[in-house]
């Protein structure tokens, strides 16, 4: 009897792993196709798409597409721009949105429910609907910098960063997480005479690792994939991000190998960022699942 039970358990385990491997393969295949294709000349790449060879680094393999990609476009500059814009926005967004959520959850003030409702209502407003008014405002805004007082934010990093620091989704994520923190902790700290700033810095934020990771990854993806907004506000190549740069490769006769090489290169920062925060991200999702 015990033997049958052990066999069933083993079978279930094998089945489970087989399904998981299959799912993993389905998700990994596009990435494998992208990287493998980036190593092949166009003619071979197109010919291989009809067979499993599309996923195998076989035939005429080289790094020529990568060399050509760097010749066609300033790839390094685009990646650097995206990393700067995304990195700065993510950091500022985590600070601003967590502070806002802290004020909504822990600080008692008149009208906070209404203001929070208004902020959450912005989640249903697509960016495209506010893009043009935002463009008109951004093109007229003043700025004090090294050149003194100037007018207009176009062709800068700040125009790609500042409008995206605060957003309803990130605030919502923090609000939900903070609501689940034990209220006794905050009360005890208040009794001990801690200020709101101290509670935010020393108690709440050290406990917010999982939600910080989740919010950071989601924000990173949104910012790194920005296309419409930089297209509208950046005419200077020096400030162009990766997604606008992708269009450099879509000429009349598309060099697919170069496209794949460029995509492989710009995927590296995303993967690195995700892998860095993966543990905390999964912890956040898992804890959400348990509560649900």
């Amino acid at each position, binding site marked *: 009897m015990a033997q049958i039970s052990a066999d069933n358990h083993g079978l279930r385990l094998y089945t489970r792993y087989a399904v998981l491997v299959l799912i993993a393969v389905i998700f990994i295949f596009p990435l494998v196709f992208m990287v493998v294709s980036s190593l092949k000349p*166009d*003619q071979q790449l*197109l*010919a291989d*798409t009809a067979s499993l060879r599309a996923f195998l680094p076989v035939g005429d393999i080289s790094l020529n597409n990568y060399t050509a990609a760097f*010749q*066609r*476009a300033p790839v390094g500059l685009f990646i650097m721009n995206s990393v700067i814009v995304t990195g700065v926005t993510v950091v500022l967004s985590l600070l601003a949105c967590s502070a806002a959520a802290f004020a909504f959850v822990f600080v008692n003030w008149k009208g906070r429910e209404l203001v929070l409702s208004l902020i959450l209502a912005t989640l249903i407003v697509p960016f495209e609907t506010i893009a*043009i008014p935002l*463009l*008109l405002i*951004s*093109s007229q805004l003043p700025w004090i910098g090294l050149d003194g007082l100037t007018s*207009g934010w*176009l062709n800068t990093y700040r125009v790609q960063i500042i409008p995206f620091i605060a957003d309803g989704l990130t605030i919502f994520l923090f609000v939900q997480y903070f609501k689940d923190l034990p209220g006794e902790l905050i009360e005890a700290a208040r009794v001990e005479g801690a200020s709101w700033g101290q509670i935010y810095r020393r108690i709440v934020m050290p406990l917010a690792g999982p939600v910080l990771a989740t919010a950071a990854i989601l924000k990173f993806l949104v910012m790194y994939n920005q296309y419409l907004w930089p*297209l*509208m*506000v950046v*005419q*200077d*190549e020096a400030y162009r991000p990766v997604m*606008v*740069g992708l*269009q*450099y*490769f*879509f*000429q*009349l*006769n*598309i060099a*697919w190998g170069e496209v794949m090489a460029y995509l492989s290169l710009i995927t590296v920062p995303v993967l690195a960022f995700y892998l860095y925060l993966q543990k905390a991200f999964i912890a956040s999702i898992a804890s959400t699942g348990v509560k649900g």
Partner: protein
Amino acid sequence: MKHFTLAAGALLASVAFTTVAQAQTTLSMWYHGAGNEGEAKVLNQIITDFNASQADWKVELQSFPQAAYNDSVTAGALAGNLPDILDVDGPIMPNWAWAGYMQPLQIDEAKIAGFLPGPKGYWGGKLYSIGLWDAAVALVTRQSILDELKLRTPTLDQPWTGEEFMAALDAAKASGKYEFPLDLGMAWTGEWYPYAFSPLLQSFGGDIVDRTTYKTAEGTLNGEAAVKFGDWWQGLFKNGYAQATQDPADRDGGFAAGKYAFSWNGNWAALGALAAFDDTVFLPAPDFGAGAKIGAASWQFGISAKSAHPDGASKFIEFALQDKYLADFANTTGLIPATKTAAAMTENYKDGGPLAVFYGMTEANALVRPVSPGYVVQAKVFEKALADIANGAAVADTLDAAVDEINADIEKNGGYGH
């Protein structure tokens, strides 16, 4: 003493150079060719030559990827941030001129008398843009295919009739050697549809819009000729002559791989087709009754309405119109030089050159797309209608609906200034 003289000379030279540099007024320029190494090389050479040729103006280039260019210009216009010089796709120009993005050129029109009609961008009787090249579409095939299928080689004087064209497709289909007899480039979307396919409609006697008034599409896009065209178009897909949806890889390499007997493609792909087979030939468009037609007008230079220096911008554009630059562009990109004299300076388009046939096609058959600000909408409506018909939608109903949509747009925009 020798050192002192050298130093003094260098100082004087640098002062003189600085004075010239300071005297030059900067003209900003936007161009759609980022990522296109060949075009960038020629354009940068023109700019370098122009900046060195005179002391008044200095052009500074900002390149954009083509797919992002029109949206960038529209956003720039909204933000009041357009450059002095911009380039514009020929059929879009009337819209930008009408919308107030552009101003007329100040160039001596005698200098463009010898230009092909396609590269000249007129709106409201004024020249708003001028191009250095044109593009053309041909029926690409191989002489060996024509011989094997026992087909007459059509010429500009005697193109295939509609019946001959269909007989050629039937022969290719009956041979059983090809996945499809005809590659129409259905993998390409957007401007390809009106550019490549509206001339076929025009050859049937229809059009996207009534060009006598530009105030309606009634009767031209849904009249008897247009419905006949629509039935023929749908038949191409229903009867297995062409595929309604196509893998982009097949568009890029299908003809070279022998999947198609004929390919409806542009001269920009011609060098690749010649490289694939040594007996590649480019045939003129068939004549479906109202004459053989192909599209015309490509990217052109213009001046933004906000430019404070239209005189300088015009000087640059006039400078760029020299035959040597037209020839350089043609040699680099494979596009058709705008003048006969420039064509004679190129390897591909000179008499007897492998692509010279395209110059003749443009001269003989080219028809610009409707010269109207409403074209930007009409092109999209036309594209959708043709895609729907290709996928089995009822021809007459689809064309009627397209006409309604175009007419409503014209009315909503007060006739677009016609």
